[in-house]
C-alpha cells in the first residue's frame, strides 16, 4: 500500500484553489523533494498529506486513510510528523517541559518519554544548559532544533518537512540532512518542501515540481 495516494485532489483555501487536481503516489521509504515557486501549492500539499486541510474533491489517502473523512484523517495523523513554518512549541514552557509534553502527548509513558527525550536532545545537540530555559528566550535556530527534537521523540512513519533548513546555521542544516537520512534508514518516508535544490536534491530519490496547484514534473533521480 502506498503511504500517500492522491488522485485529482483539490484543496480550496477560502475560495482560492490552492491545489487544483494533484496526482501523486509516494511509496514507503521514499525521500521526495517538493519544489516550485512561491504559491505553487507545496505547503498546502504537505498540509493535505498531514490531514490538516480537507480535500473538496478527488481521492486523497494517507496510509490508506481517506483524508476527506474527519475520523480517518485523525487516525492518519497519529503516524505523521510535520515541521511547518512555526515551531509548534509552547513558548512559556521550558525546553525540557515542551519535549516531555510532546512525548506524553504521543502516548509514551514517563520512562519511555525520558529515554526518548534524552536521545533526541543528544541527537539534536541541545545543550543541557538550555533545558530549563523558557522557549521564548531561545534564538530562532535553537527553537528549530527543539522543534525537531519534539518530532523525533514520536518516531513517526511519515515526515512532512516544510523548509526544514530555514533559520538554522550550517551545523544545524547538516543535522537536518542527517535526520532525514536516519528517518529513511529507520523505514520512514520523508517529503520535504524546499527551495534548496542543491542540498535537499542530494538526499532525495525523487523530485516533484509543483506550479499553479498541479504536479508539473515528477522525476526519479
Amino acid at each position, binding site marked *: 500500500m502506498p503511504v500517500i495516494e492522491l488522485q485529482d485532489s483539490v484543496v480550496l483555501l477560502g475560495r482560492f484553489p490552492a491545489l487544483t487536481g494533484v496526482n501523486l503516489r509516494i511509496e514507503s521509504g521514499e525521500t521526495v523533494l517538493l519544489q516550485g515557486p512561491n504559491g505553487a501549492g507545496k505547503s498546502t500539499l504537505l498540509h493535505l498529506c*498531514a*490531514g*490538516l486541510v*480537507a480535500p473538496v474533491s478527488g481521492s486523497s489517502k494517507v496510509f490508506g486513510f481517506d483524508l476527506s473523512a*474527519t475520523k480517518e*484523517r*485523525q487516525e492518519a*495523523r*497519529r503516524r*505523521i*510528523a*510535520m515541521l*511547518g*513554518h*512555526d*515551531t*509548534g*512549541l*509552547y*513558548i*512559556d*514552557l521550558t525546553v525540557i*517541559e515542551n519535549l516531555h*509534553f*510532546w512525548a*506524553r*502527548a*504521543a*502516548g509514551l509513558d514517563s520512562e519511555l518519554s525520558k529515554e526518548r527525550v534524552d536521545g533526541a536532545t543528544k541527537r539534536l545537540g541541545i545543550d543541557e544548559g538550555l533545558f530549563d530555559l*523558557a*522557549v521564548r528566550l531561545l534564538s530562532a535556530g535553537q*527553537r528549530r532544533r527543539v522543534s525537531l527534537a*519534539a518530532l523525533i521523540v*514520536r518516531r513517526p512513519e511519515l515526515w512532512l518537512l516544510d523548509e526544514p533548513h530555514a533559520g538554522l546555521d550550517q551545523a544545524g542544516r547538516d543535522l537536518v540532512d542527517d535526520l532525514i537520512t536516519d528517518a529513511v534508514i529507520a523505514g520512514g518516508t520523508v517529503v520535504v518542501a524546499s527551495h534548496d535544490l542543491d542540498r535537499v536534491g542530494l538526499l532525495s530519490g525523487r523530485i516533484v515540481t509543483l506550479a499553479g496547484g498541479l504536479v508539473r514534473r515528477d522525476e526519479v533521480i
Partner: protein
Amino acid sequence: MIRLFLDARLIAVKDLRIEFRSRILLNQVIPFAFLVLVLFGFALDADQPTLRIFAPGLFWIAVLFCALLAVQRSVSIEKADGADTRLRLSGVSPVAVFLGKSASVFAQLVVLEVILSIGIFVFYGSSVKQPLLMIVTGLLAATAVASTGTLYGSLASGLGARESLLPIMLLPVLAPVLIAATRAFEEALGNASVDGWAWLGLLAMFAAVATGFGGLAHGVLVDE
C-alpha cells in the same frame, strides 16, 4: 477511556503551568475583576445596603467578563507558535483537548470566584447565609462557563478577529448561566427568598449539555 482522561490531565496541567509562569490571572485578570467591582460601586453611587442587593448580579457579571479573558488566553496559548497544529497531529483526542482546556479554565474561574467573593464581602458588605448553596453554584457555573467558553473559543479561533468576536458570540449564550447563578446567589447571600436550589437544576443541566456537546463538537470545529 483511561487514555482520554490522562490526555485531558496532560493538557490541563500544561495550560495551568503556562498560566502559573505567565501570571496573567494574577497580574491582569484578578486586578481587572476588582476594578470591575469597584467601578460598579462608583457607577451605582450607592451605599453598602444598595450594593449588597445588587452584589449577586455584579459578582456574576464580573466573573463573565473575566472568563472572556481566561478563554482568550486559553486560545492564544495554542496559537502562539503553531502549537495548535502540532497538537492536532499529536494523536491526542480532540475530546481530551476540550476537557483539558475546560478544566484549566474551570480551575482559574474557581480561584477568581473565591477572590471575588472576598471582594463583595469587603467592598459591598455581603455575608453568606447558605455557604453550601454558594459553593455548589460557584462550581456549577464555573463548569458551564468553562465548557461553553472553551467551545466558543475554539470556534472563534478559526475565524478572524477572535478577540472581538468571542464576547459577541459567548455572552448571549451564557445569559441563562448569569440568570440562574445570580438567583441562586441571591438566596445564598440572603438577599431574596427565591428557591436557589431549583435554579441549580438549570445550571447543572447547562453545565452537562455544554460539557457533553462541547466534547463532541470540539474536534469537528477545530478540524473543519
